[in-house]
Structure formats: C-alpha cells, structure tokens
C-alpha cells in the first residue's frame, strides 16, 4: 500500500481496523506514522472538545424575560398604560375648547369696539 491508500484507510470510518498492509507501511514510513499520530490526536481533541459550561440559577428567568410579547398582550398593555393619558388629554382639550369659545356678549362688545375704531380712523382729522 502507498501513503495515499494508507491515509485514506486510516481516516475511513468504515475501515478503521488496521490491516496487515497498513501496519507494514506504518512500520516503514515515518511520515505516515506521524500522520496516524496526528489523526489520533485530532480525534482526542474532538472527543474532549467541550466548554463545560453550566447554566446559572437565573438562566430560565432570563429566557422568559426575552420571550417576544404577543400582539394581543401588546394591545392590552397599551390600553392599560395609555388610558389615563388619553383621559387627561381629552380633559385638557375640553377645557381649552370651552375657554377659547367666546361668549355672545363679548362678541357683541368686540363688534361695537371695532365699529367705533373704524369710524374714528376713517373720519377726516380724526384718530390718534
């Protein structure tokens, strides 16, 4: 067996059992012996590859806190949180609307004053 055949055989999961030809080649070829050692080491590294990380006591709580909020929950939340603000705004607008609306008496007085001023300004030699 040549080097390529031996290395293919060594990495073939279905034919891992060393045959006489492979062992004989390894006894003669330092490069393939080194390859076999590296391969064994790689498999050890893969087997031992683990972080060993364990979850802490608060992990489940953090997951629950990260859950996406459903649209119905969001609407309910918005309704509850925004209801006082909406009522307050409505109250302010009502008060403002009532305050801004002139009474009939004030409209009449305003109209008389405007007529008086226009008469003063339009009369010859008159006006301030």
């Amino acid at each position, binding site marked *: 067996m040549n080097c390529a055949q031996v290395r293919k055989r060594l990495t073939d999961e279905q034919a891992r059992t060393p045959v006489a030809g492979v062992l004989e080649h390894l006894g003669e070829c330092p490069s393939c012996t080194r390859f076999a050692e590296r391969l064994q080491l790689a498999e050890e590294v893969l087997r031992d590859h683990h972080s060993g990380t364990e979850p802490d006591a608060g992990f489940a709580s953090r997951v629950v806190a990260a*859950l996406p909020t459903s649209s119905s929950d969001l609407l309910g939340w918005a309704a509850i949180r925004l209801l006082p603000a909406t009522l307050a705004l409505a109250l302010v607008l009502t008060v403002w609307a009532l305050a801004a609306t002139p009474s009939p008496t004030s409209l009449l007085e305003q109209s008389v004053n405007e007529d008086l001023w226009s008469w003063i300004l339009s009369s010859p030699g008159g006006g301030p």
Partner: protein
Amino acid sequence: MEIALSVTPGLESVREPAGEEACLIAACRRGDEEAFSRLVHRHERRVFRLAGRFFRQREEVEDVAQQTFLTVWQKLETYRAKAPFEHWLTRVCLNCCYERLRKREAPVEPLEHDQAVATSEPTARLEVERLLRTLPAADRFVLLLMHGEGWSTAEIAQRLGWSRANVKVRAHRARKKLRQLLAEEL
C-alpha cells in the same frame, strides 16, 4: 408512566413523569410563561451540554441555549408528541448550533482557557486544535457529533432529521478535509 429523559451518553439518567411534562407543554402552548420557565429549568443542563460541544466561550453557549429555548417557545405548536420532547429539543438545539457555526465561519481566536493550557499541553495538540478550527463549519459540526457525542451516522440522521445518505456524504467530506489538513501540516 415514566420516560427516561437521558438520550445522550454522558448525561445522568433523569426519570420524569411523562404526564407532568405533557402538562407543562400544554400550558406553554396556552402562553403560560411560568410553565415555560419550569420547562426551561428542566432541560437547560442538557441544552448547555450540547451547545458546549460546539462553542467554548460561556457567552456563546448561553446565547445558543437561549436561542434554542426561544425557538422552542415560538415553534412549540409544531411539536408532535409522537417522539419524546427531548428528541425534538435536541434537534432544535443542534439546528441553532449549526446555524451559528455557519454564520461564524471566521477562525476562532484562542480562548483564555486554551492559552492557560498552552503552557502545559504539548505543541502537537495545540497545532491540531488550530487545524480543527480551520475546518469549515459543516465539517467540524459532523466530526464533533461523531467523535464528541459518539453518534453513528444513523443517530445523527435521526436526531437532525437529515437522510442517512446526506450524513454519510457530509461525514466523508469532513474526514477527507481533515485528512488533507493533517497531510499538509506534515
């Protein structure tokens, strides 16, 4: 009736009443976050152990574990109780790990843990670790499942929902790539 929750070698066998878990899952489907918290607590060690096989940094392991459980919450409707819940959970977790590995194709920097080991471990082992980090994500994923978890082609196919032929092709490709990398370094 009880089911064994232990499905992977190395995990202690935990026996839970199937009815209790089924109740928790049903409550989760109704949106019960408290039940979901208990379900997470019940399976978090399993998910961390599996994610820890692919990622070394604590932050990454926790991110993947969290993503796994968020996916479980969102996709719980698709779980059919024909198979044990932990099989489905394992599949969700492996998919999350695979996706993250694929997105993170860039070589991983050595970790503090690795650097601490560097003074005591032989150089050959460090070189091999570096080589393995240069493997494409898909190849590393399959090799870690085969050598790390000790799963056969059939087991990988079953747990990931892939066909056996697909797993065989991926495993063959991964071993070929590993062989090339080791040969180049000689």
